[in-house]
């Protein structure tokens, strides 16, 4: 039996009241609930406050570069399809610096899960606008209000027919843990965009701001219906839906890579006969 305690308890360097605390708890709960032991899980992160999440739990961990969690996660998963690979980082890391990798991951559909802590602001560098900052929000770096339109990761993922697209809220831990479990179970790329307040730098999208707007998608929403999914993905403002927004069974990338049938790369040995044939093919 795997329990949350297997994932450990650590002192964090996050601000009191930060949404990261709740997300960390939801991740541990989800993994324990899935019966995954810490050594079966790999958390790959980029840079930022959210990217510190795996530091506060027991599991395999690859903490890399700003924006690069998805390529690293993709490489690790392809090298060992037996690992449960989760990329976890913030909105700046996942959609800004890593924007091209996000688009490629949607197309590629490798069996990994992206947990994007979305607080609509850069926290670690003290409050600049992020790709999901709402247009017009003022920060020290955008004193006249953020001029650009906010990026909508959920709508982009749904438009790209990503297999699993969900939005969670750090204020609803149980619900979030359920979404994470479904995302991990999904065979292909899964996005969980997680709304969270940044108590230090985002004075607009506060806990109560979210609390007033967020509502759970009910059974009337059919995530396999593309038009419905796109419509719910666009809803952000007075009302913000959380839950599984879009879902389909697009075959994962791995299905098209015959080399993976031979098992994890680390456990293979050199095929000298094949090598000999290859060298001879150059005669």
């Amino acid at each position, binding site marked *: 039996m795997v329990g949350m305690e297997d994932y450990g308890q650590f002192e964090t360097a996050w601000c009191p009241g930060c949404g990261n605390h709740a997300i960390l708890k939801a991740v541990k709960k989800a993994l324990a609930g899935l019966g995954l*032991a*810490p*050594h*079966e899980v*790999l958390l*790959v992160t980029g*840079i930022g406050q959210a990217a*510190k999440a795996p*530091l506060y739990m*027991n*599991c*395999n*961990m*690859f*903490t*890399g*570069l700003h924006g*690069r969690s*998805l*390529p*690293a*996660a*993709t*490489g*690790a*998963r*392809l*090298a*060992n399809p*037996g*690992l449960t690979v989760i990329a976890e980082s913030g909105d700046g890391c996942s959609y800004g610096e890593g924007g*091209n*990798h996000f*688009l*490629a991951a949607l197309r*590629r559909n490798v069996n990994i899960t992206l947990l994007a802590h979305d607080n609509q602001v850069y926290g670690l560098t003290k409050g600049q606008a992020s790709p999901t900052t709402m247009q017009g929000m003022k920060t020290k770096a955008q004193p006249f209000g953020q001029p650009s339109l906010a990026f909508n990761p959920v709508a982009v993922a749904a438009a790209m027919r990503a297999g699993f697209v969900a939005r969670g809220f750090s204020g609803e831990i149980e619900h979030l843990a359920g979404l994470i479990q479904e995302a991990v179970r999904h065979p292909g790329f899964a996005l969980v965009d997680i709304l969270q307040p940044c108590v230090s730098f985002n004075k607009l999208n506060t806990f109560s701001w979210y609390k007033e707007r967020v509502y759970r998608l009910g059974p009337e929403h059919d995530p396999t219906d593309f038009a419905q999914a796109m419509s719910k993905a666009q809803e952000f403002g007075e009302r913000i839906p959380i839950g599984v927004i879009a879902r389909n069974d697009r075959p994962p990338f791995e299905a098209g*890579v*015959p*080399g*993976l*049938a*031979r098992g*994890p*790369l*680390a*456990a*293979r040995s*050199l*095929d*000298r006969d*094949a*090598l*000999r*044939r*290859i*060298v*001879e*093919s*150059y*005669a």
Partner: protein
Amino acid sequence: MNGPDINIVIGGEAGQGLVTVGDTLSRALTRAGYEIVVTQDYMSRIRGGHNTFAIRTGPDPVSAPTVDIDILVALDQESVDLHAGQLTARGLIVAGDDLRLPDAPCLRVPYRRLAPKPLYDNVAALGVLGSAVCNDLSILERLVSEAFEKKGPEVVEANLSVLRAAYAWVREQEHPFACMPPAPADAGPRIMLNGNEAIALGALAGGCDFLSFYPMTPGTSVALALIDKGRETGLVAEQAEDEIAAVNMALGAAYAGARAIVSTSGGGFALMCEGVSLAGMLELPVVIVVAQRPGPATGLPTRSEQADLNLVLYAGHGEFPRAVFAPGGVEDCFYLTHRAFELAERYQSPAFVLTDQFLADSYRSVAPFDLDALPEPPEHLLRPEEGRAYKRYRITEDGVSPRAIPGFSEALVVSDSDEHTEDGKLTEDLSVRTAMQDKRLRKGYGLIEEAVPPDYYGPDRPDLLLVCWGSTLGAALETLRRLEGRRTRAAVLHFRQVWPLNGRQFLPFLEEAARVVMVEGNSTGQLAALIRQETGFLIDNLILRYDGLPFTAAFILAGLGSLDA
């Protein structure tokens, strides 16, 4: 000059099939037992432009390209106009009857009479050329059959009849070109491949099972050869969205136990630099092939240069050990790439293969690689003895920590790009920082001890020592042969590994030579500067080439002449 070797240059527009003709003739010569050095000069376009495929071949080893042309196969007028002046005294032009030719020996090929359709002109040209140099018809027939096998027996037969007609037609013509001297009978089996293909095979022999890349000339063909040949070994390959993704994907794969390679060229490598730094910090093995071409920026995309040594040497912020190999020829491409995999794995560090466009595209005929002589790839530690107490970055005497692979045991493999403790977690304890940095740097001492020493060719205490690295070797060796019998006693010192440099391995050679001349393909003398930095030895005679073309003996001899003047 009239040696036993001849230089055949096929010139034409991109898309005319000159590579097909050149490639097939090169393979025929290889199968007949001749040595070859192929130089491809092409423009950065898909069709049109002026391209050449030059085959220097002979019964004795040939090592470098040459400017003189013995047979010029002109597929268009521009090839005649540009290259007729390079013909040797025995030179011959082979051209269709529609081209204006100068007053020189020539074979006017009646393509329309020999081949039913222009589609067959390549095979006709092959027959004409093979016949002119007296290549065995049966070897050519076999190659043509192999090439068209998949298209069915009728297509094979149609091509064979064009080949035979062209071959026979030459026999009836009077032309001054004598047959090549016979190839040595005891040549043994030979294979033909270019530098990038040899790098791909060296990688597979080194256990490479993961490739991620973003296409960039001239690095792409390493990836293409790996994708093609790696099917048989189960290689996992992905064309990444950009070079940043390519290197990070390779590192993620390496972390999970893959033997990963990325191949690129200067501009793409510039994008990878942060990832290289990550490899240094996470202590992950990765082999990075950088096929050099002239810069800065986009430079001359399809030409050659050796100007990215400094980039590769200093790529990545912070300080960490690395190894940089610089193959001199096709065999070196194979063995040094294998070596790069071995060292990357043992030292958990990035290792580089620094090649260039000339070598990347240069076909050679070589003995099949000796696979039995290669050491087995180092084994992975799948289940560390410490179990749950495993520490990824345990501080050790030689700096190398036992590297477990995640997912195979209860041990957790924890890696952080921040400075970290022995168990891999972020720390801002500054004494740990110092200890970790020292640990990483200690791996560098092992790399210095294991550095591949430069090769020395020629007499002790020479009057002239030519120092070079990478693909310049061939031209330097030919220069040496051309200087034989003159009063100057010359030697060559060739660096096959350009970092780390172990002065004890080569300083005596530099000190004992009366005069030392550095020959390198860049405009500032990067290796000369590095040698001075590492050993204090000043090489102030430099022969530098940076017009995009590979070195030739003639270029080096001219350079020596101006140094004397």
